[in-house]
């Protein structure tokens, strides 16, 4: 148990000092996964292949071979990220038995860095939802309070010590809201910083892969590994390679912090003053408009992306009468859950001839406006701070409320990096997250501020 609770940074350190082995770490997290299987964090556990990889890693280490940064460290990835020869379900019945023929770039980078992939994590079906209640394989529970939701099995797994860190995806808060609900650190990087190649798209114009970890340092370590240009993703950014972990320091000196108040954001952000930052509240009256735009754009894109799941070449197929249209109809009806169907209906509505201009293109205009607003804000401020979500993790089964995501989606639409760090506790004593946003490709500033906040909070304890 204690071994599983190490941070990713500590686990690497112990491995390097030969105080533990990859096999021990892998066994420890798999034991956690088995012990808390009822949390339903994971869809597939690679017990055999993970242990095999751990043995190989230990052998390489014993032989004194050069080791990459994550050598021997067990991590998990969300089940919309492809790994060759393994199931990719996207938490859907439609892909229940689908095996991916190739590996996503982000996953390959983890593997190339020596990570042991232990599991594929539960999620909302194809990403449709933000409480992980729409999975065809049942909801993932919040380890802090299992009656409550998480926003993703990856967060549950990391919070429940079933891996040392995870690769999640974030379209409109997937990583950050999960982090907030489970008391973790979750980063949605700048759009394009991590390749989306091999990640089943929900909404390609906002989807981001990012790290979910228990500490800020762990987050920087995973970001170092996964970031980088990929010719297989045209939207992948060509940025000089950064060393986030190496350059990580708890520092906000001289930074100007603007706060969009809500929850405990203003009180929490005041903490940055102690580090030499100036903090001021800003007006940002666009949250509702942003949410509407987000829903319009992402449902349209999700509809389009999900059309390929047609039962013809792969995935669940129901022949019905055998007529082509019946194959489509029956396969998709049986394969998709309610939330996915709603998204598809909405996407079709948004893109229909009658609504294209007044829904989809209007939403794109709002997105453009938001981007311009952020450009202006970042001339004044280095960081913008808000709640990640202004409520505690909701109780499972409650009617979901799209406004939960209103703070999260602005960064998604603007394409800017945003991190959620544990902040205060809510009225029920559950963790809440502080969202810190920075201008594009300023992940280092973001991580440094997050580290400062994490240290300050530890100091309070």
């Amino acid at each position, binding site marked *: 148990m204690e071994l599983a609770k190490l941070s990713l940074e500590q686990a690497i350190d112990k491995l390097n000092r030969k105080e533990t082995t990859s096999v021990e770490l892998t066994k420890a997290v798999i034991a956690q996964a088995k012990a808390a299987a009822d949390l339903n964090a994971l869809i597939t556990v690679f017990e055999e292949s993970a242990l095999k990889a751990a043995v190989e890693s230990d052998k390489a280490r014993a032989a004194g071979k050069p080791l990459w940064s994550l050598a021997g460290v067990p991590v998990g990835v969300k089940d919309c990220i492809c790994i060759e020869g393994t199931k990719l379900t*996207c938490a859907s019945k439609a892909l229940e038995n*689908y095996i991916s023929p190739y590996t996503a770039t982000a996953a390959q980078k983890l593997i190339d860095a020596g990570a042991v992939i232990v599991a594929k994590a539960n999620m909302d079906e194809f990403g449709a939802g933000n409480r992980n209640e729409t999975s065809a394989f049942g909801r993932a529970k919040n380890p802090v309070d299992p009656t409550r939701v998480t926003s993703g099995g990856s967060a549950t797994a990391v919070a429940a010590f079933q891996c040392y860190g995870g690769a999640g995806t974030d379209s409109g808060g997937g990583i950050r809201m999960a982090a907030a609900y489970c008391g973790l650190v979750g980063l949605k990087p700048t759009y394009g910083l991590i390749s989306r*190649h091999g990640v*089943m798209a929900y909404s390609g114009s906002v989807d981001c892969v990012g790290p979910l970890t228990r500490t800020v340092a762990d987050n920087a370590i995973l970001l170092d590994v996964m970031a980088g240009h990929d010719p297989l*993703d045209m939207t992948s950014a060509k940025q000089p390679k950064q060393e986030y972990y190496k350059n990580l320091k708890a520092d906000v000196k001289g930074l100007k912090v603007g706060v969009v108040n809500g929850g405990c954001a203003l009180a929490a952000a005041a903490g940055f003053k102690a580090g030499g930052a100036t903090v001021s509240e800003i007006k940002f009256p666009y949250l509702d408009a942003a949410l509407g735009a987000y829903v319009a754009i992402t449902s349209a894109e999700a509809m389009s992306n999900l059309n390929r799941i047609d039962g013809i*070449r792969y995935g669940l197929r129901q022949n019905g009468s055998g007529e082509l249209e019946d194959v489509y109809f029956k396969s998709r009806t049986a394969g998709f859950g309610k939330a996915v169907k709603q998204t598809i209906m909405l996407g079709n509505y948004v893109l229909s001839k009658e609504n294209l201009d007044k829904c989809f293109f209007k939403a794109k205009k709002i997105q453009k406006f938001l981007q311009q607003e952020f450009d202006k804000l970042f001339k004044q401020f280095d960081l913008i701070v808000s709640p990640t979500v202004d409520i505690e993790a909701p109780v499972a089964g409650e009617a979901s409320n799209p406004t939960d995501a209103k703070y999260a989606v602005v960064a998604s639409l603007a394409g800017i990096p945003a991190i959620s760090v544990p902040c205060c506790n809510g009225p029920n004593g559950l963790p809440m997250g502080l969202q810190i946003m920075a201008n594009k490709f300023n992940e280092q500033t973001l991580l440094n501020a997050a580290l400062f906040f994490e240290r300050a909070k530890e100091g309070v304890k």
Partner: protein
Amino acid sequence: MSYEIVIGLEIHCELKTKTKAFCSCRNEFGAEPNVNVCPGCLGMPGTLPALNKTAVEYCIRAGLAVGCKISRYSAFERKHYFYPDLPNAYQVSQLEYPLCIGGGLTLDSGKFVRLNRIHLEEDAGKLLHGPYGTRVDLNRAGVPLIEIVTEPDLRSADEAVEFLAKLKSALLTTGVSDCKMQEGRLRCDVNVSVNKPGDKWGTRIEMKNLASFSAIKRAITYEAKRQMDELDKGNTFVQATRRWDDKDGKSYPMRDKETSNDYRYFPDANIIPINVEPSYVESIRKTLPEMPWELKERLQKELGLSEYDARTITSDKAYSDLYLNVLKTFNEPKFVLNFIMGEVFKKLNALGQDDIEIPLKPEILAKLLKLYHGKTIAQATARELLDEIWESNADPEQIVKDRNLAQVSDSGALEAILQKLVADNPKAAEQLKMGDPKVNQFFIGQTMKATGGKANPAVVLEVLNKIINK
């Protein structure tokens, strides 16, 4: 009362890039089903498009060849519909921001047919129907296509076919496509409407995927007539797509479902828009070869060909390539032209293809023509040899030598034959003496018969005159 026919074309032309439009699979025709496929063009989860730069270049190249304006900014959209040959259930295409705008081509009549646009898109796969049922071959899925859209400027089936032939020739010249209609690499959607002169345009009917010049001509002719008949009967109809059945020679209505799609076009977020640098466009423009209409003018000016001859020989790249390449080793422009437009055309028409392919190598034809021009062989021999070497590309000089096909111009050898003929045909000889020229032909024919067509007719006449006038 007569009607005016209004026709617009949408031409789909597969580009001959090495790889597909958005993945690195090979773009080749005729491979075993589903060998040139990858997770990307199979539409598997997580795959993303990587735009083939050569496809963009070829589209611009085609646009420049036909006088389009090249867009500074160009972007891709998704066109949604479900069909098993379309793995992503959307086709990546261009609606709002096509690469090429405007342009056009001039018909022989001098009429300019305007283009609306040329845009880049991806092809779909193919359904294979067989005894086992229907299967899908996705080798073609994702192959880059250009769609060339005309304005509704064409007024007859003949104009449409002429336009298409000129466009095809231009595209072949640019080298962006092999334009093989038989392989479906060039196909055409036809929009036809009819109206009384002076009236507004009639209701448009579209027929998709016509794959030969004859189908296009027949479809337009049939459809225009059908619409006129309907209107004459006082009937009206709605804008629709009809299916052309080339075997029946008729167009048929399609189910509403198949024609009333809302394709839900919207921008493809995975493909970043292209900023087309003017310097890049200029660099492509510099590499454009001489276009058929430019070649036509040059042939008139430099070789003194008539307008008709120059137009005809440049009407297909296969003709002009053959012509120019024969001239390289045998520079007798008129003689070569006459032979190609006579004998070679006869052979090609006998084959009756849309896709002109001449297996005979120009240097071999040049050898044959030298033999013919130098009177080493007779016309009949030249024709026979053309047939023989058409595909084999055997050396005509060698054949003439091996089989002793050289024309008999030796007056001694011909004299013996002719003396015998005169002796055997006293009546004809008498007529000839009286100066009846028709009998000349009789003696030439008989001499040809006796020599296996190898006699030189001029020499025959010369010898004959000598014998008669002795």
